[in-house]
């Protein structure tokens, strides 16, 4: 079982990233659960997506001890860093989050803007990085999930952002 928590602020698309990761796992026939927690503001409040992926049945309802924490904003990191296992993987946007422990990551928002012209594809860049680093699902499954889940007409730009993050994660 792998417990993954994505944390950021409203508007960064962390919940959509969680849904797409979950959909990719479902496409592969894995058991998967996704729940979310967010403030009532549509932008600026904390936003958390939990994804649990397992070959066994999942009885948990949320991440209890995260194997992976992806933090796209300092507020997201601060609000949930205690939930990351001591030997868990911390992935951050290195421009926006200053962690107080070991981490990996890249300037995801910057990469998004640079490669797609849209900062709001940061969620797909971070997802690509996460998938490359953990191998929890296949790249192809995520790309299929992106096509199912993003608004029509935005599939290409989202897949592109995902691939940017994926390549970054392979470095």
């Amino acid at each position, binding site marked *: 079982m792998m417990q993954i928590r994505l944390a950021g602020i409203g508007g960064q698309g962390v919940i959509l990233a969680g849904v797409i990761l*979950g959909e990719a796992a479902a*496409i592969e*026939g894995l*058991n998967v659960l996704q729940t979310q927690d967010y403030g009532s503001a549509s932008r600026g409040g904390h936003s958390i997506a939990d994804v649990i992926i397992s070959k066994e049945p999942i009885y*948990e309802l949320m991440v209890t001890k995260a194997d992976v924490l992806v933090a796209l904003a300092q507020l997201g990191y601060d609000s949930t860093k205690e939930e990351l296992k001591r030997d868990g993987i911390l992935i951050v946007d290195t421009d926006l989050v200053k962690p107080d422990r070991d981490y990996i990551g890249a300037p995801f928002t910057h990469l998004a803007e640079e490669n797609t012209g849209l900062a709001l594809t940061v969620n797909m860049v971070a997802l690509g990085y996460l998938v490359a680093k953990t191998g929890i699902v296949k790249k192809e499954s995520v790309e299929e999930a992106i096509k199912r889940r993003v608004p029509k007409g935005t599939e290409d730009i989202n897949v592109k952002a995902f691939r940017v993050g994926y390549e970054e994660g392979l470095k």
Partner: protein
Amino acid sequence: MKYPFPVGRSDFIQGDEAIARAAILAGCRFYAGYPITPASEIFEAMALYMPLVDGVSIQMEDELASMAAIIGASWAGAKAMTATSGPGFSLMQENLGYAIMTETPVVVVDVQRGGPSTGQPTLGAQGDVMQSIWGTHGDHSLIVLTPATVQEAFDMTIRAFNLAEKYRTPVALLTDAEIAHMRERVYTPNPEDIELVYRKLPANKEEAQYPFGDIHGDMIPPMPIFGKGYRTYVTGLTHDEKGRPKTVDAEVHERLIRRIINKLEKNKEDIIAYETFDLDDAEIAIISYGTVARSAIRAVKLLREEGIKAGLLKLNTIWPFDFEMIEGIAEHVSKIYVPEMNLGQVYHLVKEGANGKAEVELIPKIGGEIHTPTDIIERVKRGV
């Protein structure tokens, strides 16, 4: 027929969405509702899907009218559903009683949230158990189902329609904010692989004269459909086999009410559904349902790893209730724990069932958080 969502494959969807899709596949073609968190997504999906399957989805002025509308639709021959949360479920109680009294097959989904009153709109709870069973006045019975996963929400929605049609009764599907909004992998079968039940219709004019009569000896009268050529009188007043009001005749009242209750009680074996985990040799039993059953399954597994012989009874229906089965379990265990997201509701049913044969202890939790497996394990260990 083409469905407005994928069939014959697994999808990653929320509990509310799963209920809407399952209802469509079960043959539901009339939905009436009023938006309310955390049930609104069921309505949203129905508004999207119904026009695409030649069905109707209508927003009524409130929950009283929503319930009235689905009762009317059912008598017009449609499989019909509404969905709401606690505050709306309270408003539906009067007409839910009317549906019971008129033996109208309908499905009512209550996505539970913290209450009473408007309470905690976004947080899960199990506070509507007693309301779902006894919320309407008078002696009565109905069927209440309790899913614990998104797949179960899907499967039990289809089952709810089948039971409603088979027994000519309202069926309540009790979920909560957690199941409503979590996404899980759900397998949607091909429609031809789904077994569907349709209500018994009068075979001829003679049968149609007794829309409330036990003319087949199975306590389930055939249901005439408006517009199909029969004259039928439908009333919430106590009525005789022909549907005529008989409000002061004790015998008629007793015959009607006992039949409405017995058609479910005498078919308990068909209606009641449950699962057991490690219960056969258990010394300690946990009895759970809905969302909390997930934590209870994990708790049982962890307790077993520590050498404590715990087992679980997971209730998939909470009404009708199998009191005898609980007594049977109580005879073989030293203690029964009932974790619930309320201050004790199914606990009282279990205690009545246990009949003093085993101690029954409630593990309550309110406020919107779900029991963790640890919450349950610690309480069990304290008693060992």
